[in-house]
């Protein structure tokens, strides 16, 4: 009877060919300290040899009560907390938050500020995607692309340091504009130069070294396939959704800022190496997005008007009328939304963050099952999660 039960519960028990010897699944703790979990993600695995039979993510190791903190401070002060959500693309996080505040506040953001926002946000997106490529390569055992990608990211950090003063957490946006204007004329020239260098040389290098490497493709093609329906069901956004062949990008489909002015494409997974929605597709979407971001930056720099960069000043606390606003923006990981409820005071009544990494991660419970441990590592890497954003 007991034997029958085990057989009903799981297929692996069929392999019990030695009578009297009981075999059971091995519980395996992957993380929170594990090199492939991109921070402090913890996965509870049940494995049969190399095959994963159950995969449960355990979260909360980086929880910093950011949403609660928002309720106790002024709208302007909270910008610097958004930096800490997705610390690999902090400017994109700023963007989502200030857009929500401005929606409620009804303030006209100067055109120049919007251009600077787009330029810095796209630079930040490139930096984030570069890290995604780098760490993904590392997960696959390729060390060298890591250093190459970090070299280019370093150039982006230098550019952002010159305009925002920080190298990692910029606190660059304020409701109603950006904090600083372009430091000097050379900055825009340097941005263009960097973008050209990245487009013409570096992306080719990455493709040669990593993307079209035979071993790399073998590892990723047909691995961790997310079907379109699954991507919809689990609320995936960003490169994860686009990797499954869905062309959805908030910059295009629900435009904000000055994105409608610019001409760019939304790359989607096409299943070139295997199935649509496999790990390679998600990876390649990021590589192609780097190129598209370069296009956007070039246009934004070329058409940047003069004038002020902030509408309501930097220091005075902001007071919002009572009401609620939701804004969504396309961060490097996907749709990043802020839902702000104001009761008319200087602080929000509630600030709910919809973070893309959190929503993208939950699909692992479905896709992770039946994969090999190595493929699970590839799958986590292809999701490109940032734990700062998941736990907030």
């Amino acid at each position, binding site marked *: 009877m007991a034997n029958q039960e085990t057989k009903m519960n799981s297929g692996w028990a069929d392999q019990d060919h030695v009578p009297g010897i009981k075999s059971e699944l091995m519980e395996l703790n992957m993380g929170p300290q594990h090199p492939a979990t991109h921070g402090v993600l913890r996965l509870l695995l049940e494995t049969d040899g190399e095959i994963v039979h159950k995969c449960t993510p355990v979260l909360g190791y980086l929880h910093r009560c950011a949403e609660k903190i928002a309720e106790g401070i002024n709208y302007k002060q909270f910008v610097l907390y958004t930096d800490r959500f997705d610390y690999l693309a902090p400017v994109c996080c700023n963007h989502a938050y200030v857009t929500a505040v401005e929606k409620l506040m009804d303030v006209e953001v100067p055109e120049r500020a919007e251009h600077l926002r787009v330029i810095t946000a796209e630079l930040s997106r490139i930096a984030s995607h570069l890290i995604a490529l780098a760490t993904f390569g590392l997960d696959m055992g390729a060390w*060298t692309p890591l250093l190459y990608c970090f070299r280019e990211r370093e150039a982006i950090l230098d550019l952002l340091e010159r305009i925002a003063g920080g190298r990692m957490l910029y606190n660059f946006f304020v409701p109603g504009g950006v904090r600083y204007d372009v430091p000097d004329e050379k900055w825009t020239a340097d941005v263009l130069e960097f973008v050209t260098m990245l487009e013409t040389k570096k992306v080719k290098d990455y493709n040669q070294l990593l993307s079209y490497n035979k071993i790399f493709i073998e590892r990723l093609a047909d691995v961790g396939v997310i079907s379109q329906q699954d991507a919809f069901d689990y609320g995936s956004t960003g490169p994860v959704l686009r990797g499954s062949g869905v062309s959805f990008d908030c910059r295009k489909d629900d435009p904000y800022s000055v994105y409608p002015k610019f001409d760019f494409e939304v790359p989607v997974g096409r299943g070139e190496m295997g199935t649509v929605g496999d790990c390679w597709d998600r990876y390649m979407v990021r590589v192609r997005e780097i190129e598209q971001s370069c296009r956007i930056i070039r246009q934004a720099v070329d058409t940047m008007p003069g004038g002020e960069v902030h509408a309501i000043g930097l220091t005075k606390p902001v007071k919002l009328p009572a009401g609620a606003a939701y804004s969504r923006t396309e961060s490097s990981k996907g749709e990043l939304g802020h839902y702000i409820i104001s009761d008319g005071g200087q602080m929000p009544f509630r600030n709910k963050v919809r973070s893309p990494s959190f929503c993208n991660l939950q699909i692992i419970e479905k896709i992770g099952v039946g994969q090999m441990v190595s493929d699970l590592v590839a799958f986590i890497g292809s999701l490109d999660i940032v734990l700062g954003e998941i736990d907030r």
Partner: protein
Amino acid sequence: MNILTEMIRGWFGPDKMSDQMVLILSAVTLATLMFVVMALCALVFTWMERKVAGFIQSRYGPMRTGRWHGWAQAVADMLKILGKEDIIPAEANRFFFSFAPILVLLGSLLAWAAIPWSPNFVSADLDLGLFYIFAVSSLAIIGILMAGWASNNKWALYGAARGAAQMVSYEIPLALACIPVVMYTGSLNTSDIVIAQQGGVLNWFLFRNPFIFVAFFMYFIASIAETNRGPFDMPETESELVAGYHTEYTGMRFAFFFLSEYANLFLVSLIASMVFLGGWWSPIPGTDFAPALTFIIKGVLMVLLNMWVRWTLPRVRVDQLMYLCWKVMIPVSLTCVVGAGLWMMWRGQA
């Protein structure tokens, strides 16, 4: 060996010692010498690995320790590792846990005995030299399994299971790739194999027979897998298994694994140079001025090639590794054996 026994006799006076005593003394001397050379090689290669990795990754690698390009970095690391606490996990099997690193090191150390460094210097000039090398280097598998199992750590167990499967499998193409050469020499004696390649680069086995040329690449791929280095570093797989079979090891015990990895790396490179690349013979006939140096340079070049591969390619998955071995490399190696034999008959080289 003979020279050494003569020297020892000379030092102690001709009649002071029995023959057995002299033999034991010279064996101990040679073993110590080999161990020192091996440890030095490991030091040099760890430094070299960092510099090569740095060069490939557009950075410098160690630059400070010892002033000139950080030459003393490996020494400093060794000293540091000597001072580390030796931790044995509470639930580990103490005996096997402490014995495993020694066994792994022993495997590579024993294999070094049969390497023909120069016409006059082979520590153990065995008739079954090549066979002996492959046999004793398999000891490492037992050590790795032991380490993984005794650690009582699931990641270590994964690493050990993968490592054992991989090394057992890849020994087959490794040995098969050397068989065509043995068919030429008719001897497994390592010195004989090198002597048969006298007379310039065209007499190296690599260029004597197209099938051996293919077999060389089979050997090279299998040797990467045999030394557990990227892209076949399944037992370690630091992005998947934390550190694989040596996850729980610290201090000198870890250093033993480390040492044996580099000793093995040099060993397989030396075998490649010995079997396929003419051993101590220089490429141009009549210029054999420094046989041992020529041999070592060839070995170091093979090591460089190994490092180049490691720092360029991503890692394969464990089932793909097995597929590559059983379904690609073993059939190709077998074909090479048959093909080389037919070629020998056709060209009348047999």
